């Protein structure tokens, strides 16, 4: 063999890979210290409705011309316009559904309502903290789930994929290589969130965040951490990939101990990590449905979405550096049987109960057992709703008219825009702009709802007015912008020329 055995070398001095200073790098409140390791005070929770939610069946017209058209094109899929009819249709299955849930008027003074089963979200609307952005979409709706989802992720109407808007925003916020600001709760790596520098966790259960070892966990963990530390110290000029992976390795191993059990590292050793400790019962095992250990409106709400949001609540309250979250709920691809056995109504009820309870969870101070922290690490026990924005989206809305006449058979097909919701303590409630008119579809697409808000304005408002990225960096041509401008005349000859915020955030 030609090589020399045991040619082990001592590596060069540490090349510090500093986080590039950003003009609007966020500071620890009240200090000049860059926000390096701790969590920020701004939380974003994105709720994706998979399959293409029927926007017109979620937020529907109550009166006037639009109501008449709605009733004519949806003979069996229409939602009621009177309390009596709501109670008759829904109160058997959903006892709280006894009245029409008006959300007020749009800019044309037409009145709209939330689906009657969404009582929990309606209470938030009544408190003025639920915004409705009607008709959010992009030019030339693509009717493929995958393509349309990619367009929502990137804000690029061409649909070519690539890094998504949230990941680009994280890069602009200058999160460093040891930070994990994002947690995705459906276990798959969603490209919309992936930053260039920082990292994310994609999990379905907390125990996935456990150092992978068959026994001897501490000894193995120490060895791997030391080895990654040595790789991280390699020259980032000569070995840009290897040194970055070393940094990611260090971050991954140390960060996951803040979530799940480990005997090492995090302030006080113990069996449970600080996040997990908020989901365990007194005997150290997961409580029913992964309920939170303290009194929370989320406890006892039974759905996967609610369980995921309990995990999100625990991560937020444990104060471990993650502030952006993705949860999802599936089943919205209702080509047929949309009203059969209250199918779509049930999905919206599940969504409303889980998201409503999550809002209530953040909108309260909590009392934790024991010292109220994890050893010396304090939990966030205060009211957090003014720090949070919750936003819904779906890859597209569905056709205006139902596609079959039978009450059990009728469904709707892939189409274009749909109304989306934004909630939070800082959110301005109400309907922003004009609900797309049912008698004014885009040219050549008679069964689509036209879009009134470009997806770039919708997410751009959150990026700009909530996360603080300057408006001038939202949309334009080139990689330094969050969204590509991609000049494209839409079906009506409209062209997106730049970012215009929507006033659900001021």
């Amino acid at each position: 063999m030609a090589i020399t055995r045991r040619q082990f070398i001592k590596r060069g001095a540490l090349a510090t890979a500093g986080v590039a200073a950003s003009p609007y790098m966020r500071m620890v409140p009240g200090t000049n210290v860059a926000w390096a390791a701790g969590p920020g005070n701004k939380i974003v929770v994105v709720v994706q409705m998979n399959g293409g939610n029927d926007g017109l069946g979620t937020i529907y017209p109550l009166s006037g011309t639009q109501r008449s058209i709605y009733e004519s094109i949806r003979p069996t899929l229409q939602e009621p316009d009177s309390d009596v009819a709501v109670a008759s249709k829904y109160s058997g299955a959903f006892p709280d559904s006894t009245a029409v849930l008006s959300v007020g008027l749009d800019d044309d003074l037409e009145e709209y309502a939330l689906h009657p089963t969404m009582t929990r979200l309606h209470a938030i609307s009544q408190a003025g903290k639920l915004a409705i952005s009607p008709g959010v979409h992009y030019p030339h709706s693509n009717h493929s789930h995958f393509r349309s989802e990619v367009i929502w992720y990137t804000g690029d109407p061409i649909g070519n994929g690539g890094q998504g808007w949230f990941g680009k925003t994280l890069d602009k916020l200058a999160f460093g290589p040891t930070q994990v600001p994002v947690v995705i709760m459906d276990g798959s790596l969603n490209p919309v969130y992936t930053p260039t520098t920082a990292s994310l966790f994609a999990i379905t259960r907390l125990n996935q965040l456990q150092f992978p070892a068959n026994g001897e966990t501490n000894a193995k963990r120490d060895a791997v951490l030391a080895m990654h530390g040595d790789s991280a110290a390699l020259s980032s000029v000569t070995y840009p990939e290897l040194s970055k992976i070393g940094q990611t390795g260090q971050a991954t191993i140390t960060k996951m101990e803040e979530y799940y059990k480990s005997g090492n590292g995090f302030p006080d050793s113990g069996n449970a990590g600080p996040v997990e400790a908020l989901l365990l019962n007194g005997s150290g095992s997961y409580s029913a449905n992964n309920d939170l250990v303290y009194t929370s409106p989320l406890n006892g709400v039974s759905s996967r979405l609610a369980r995921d949001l309990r995990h999100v609540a625990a991560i937020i309250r444990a104060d471990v550096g993650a502030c952006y979250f993705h949860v999802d709920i599936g089943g919205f691809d209702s080509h047929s049987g949309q009203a059969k056995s209250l199918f779509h109504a049930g999905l919206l009820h599940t969504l409303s109960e889980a998201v409503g309870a999550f809002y209530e969870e953040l909108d309260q101070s909590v009392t934790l057992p024991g010292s109220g922290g994890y050893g010396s690490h304090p939990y966030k026990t205060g009211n957090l709703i003014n720090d949070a924005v919750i936003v819904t989206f779906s890859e597209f809305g569905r056709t205006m008219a139902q596609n079959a006449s039978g009450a059990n058979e009728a469904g709707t097909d892939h189409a274009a825009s749909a109304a989306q919701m934004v909630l939070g303590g800082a959110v301005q409630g109400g309907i922003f702009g004009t609900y797309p008119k049912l008698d004014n579809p885009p040219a050549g697409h008679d069964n689509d709802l036209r879009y009134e808000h470009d997806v770039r304005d919708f997410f751009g408002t959150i990026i700009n007015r909530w996360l603080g990225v300057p408006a001038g960096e939202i949309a334009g041509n080139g990689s330094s912008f969050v969204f590509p401008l991609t000049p494209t005349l839409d079906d009506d000859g409209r062209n997106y020329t730049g970012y215009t915020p929507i006033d659900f955030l001021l």
Partner: protein
Amino acid sequence: MAVWNYENAAHLLKRAGFGAPPDKIQDFLDDFASVEEAVDSMLSFKGKKSKPPAKKDDSTASLRSMQRWWIKRMVKSKRPSDAAREKFVLFLHDHLVSGADKFDEYRWLSYQNRLFRNIGGGSFKTLMREFNRDPANLIYLDGIINRKNNINENWGREVMELFCLGVFQIGDDGAPDPAKENYSESDVQNLARASSGWVGEFQNNKGQYIGVFEIGEYDADNNPGNPAPIELFDDGIGGFAYSGQNLRFDEGVADTVDDALKYIFEKTDDGGNNQVGMFLASKLWTWYAFPPPSVDFAALGSAHANMKAMFATFALEFVNAGFEIKSLIRAILTSDEFYSAEAKSRTVKSPAEYVVQMLRAFSVKTNGKNVGDSNDLGRVLDDMGMRLFEPPNVAGWPGGLAWINAGTLLERMDFAKDFGGSDFGSSRLRFKKMSKIAPLLGNAAVVVTDVVDAVIEQGGFDLGPVPLSTVQRDALINYAGDGNPAATLDLSSEFTGDVETKVRGLISLLYQTAESQVH
């Protein structure tokens, strides 16, 4: 010419294939006298005829079964040339992308995989012509709805942007030069028009869909008296026309798309280099060596002035060989630059490379279903971000550092744990088959440093990407010796004692490092 030694043989096997255990690397070294001989052997793509993953009439093939089939082939490829073919077909899958997300039957991708196997190494122009009419591509890039008066530009755009030319010419540093665009938007539209009329047709005698041309769906000026050619490229080299009842193909071309490709394959950059050759050179160099630009081109020991000049020589080989892709790969794999330190340390392994190299280095077999407690291997790669037969979009997997974040790294570390612990089924660790570890078995007191070094060498971690440092080696010794570097380990039995704990543990730990993610 680069020296033919163990280190370079190991590098060639890893990059052109999926690596090999130390004893097989030595055999490979002994079998050939030079880099050129070894490369020619690998690129023969010889070996057992490989059936496609799904039978041609099997509409029930599942994504997972196809993924398992392919991963198993990558792991089990015995001859270096078998592995080289799998690696190259994986390149084509990542370059000429069709994805399962647009299909209701996965078998279309089985046909496409077979197409890549059968003719992928030959003329790239022929491959593009056949790829156009491949059913998976016709569906994925909307060829079947690209018709007269209803032009869909998807295929036309990707031929220009992703498959053949690239948006920009290659700059001096080997990366795209944003000041020099290769085509205009009207070129995209016109290529789409020139490619229109291909539809899917079920052919009973073949038992499958194939792409066929329907002249009535071809979008060209069909005024018989005044045929207006479809222009391509404003430098005036293009033009196709439909006149009267016949397509006026240029002499010697087989169909409309071939006619259009003729002009694309004639396109040159400002320096007169064939642009398809330059573009493919940069793509294949990235695949086999490292992503441009170089961090220090002078350190590559190149005879060329810069990366672009190096690509130009590769492109010339490609053109002179009638656009044969193998000739381009051969030029890369026999270049001095390919054996530089940078080419051995700057590519982040794809999940397939990471997993398959691991199994091969330790002579572990697989049925593709699982390794120890791991998931199905298709699912394993999926969880690491590589869903075989379903790339994220038409641009393929982004590659490089995009493979690695806290989530994917954790999936890789978790697989390393399952690999080290694998003690049942077809993929169990067989220590007696590991040439570096087997000699230590049967000895009840082996010095811990010898055990650590044997495991390091079995995995090839003594070679690179950067040889493990003293700090890293010490961390492994500290683990294996429970803090005592002079300790001895009991390797008297393959199934008990320190083999079961420490040797398995060392294997897991090595593949949890940053070094194991890069080659």
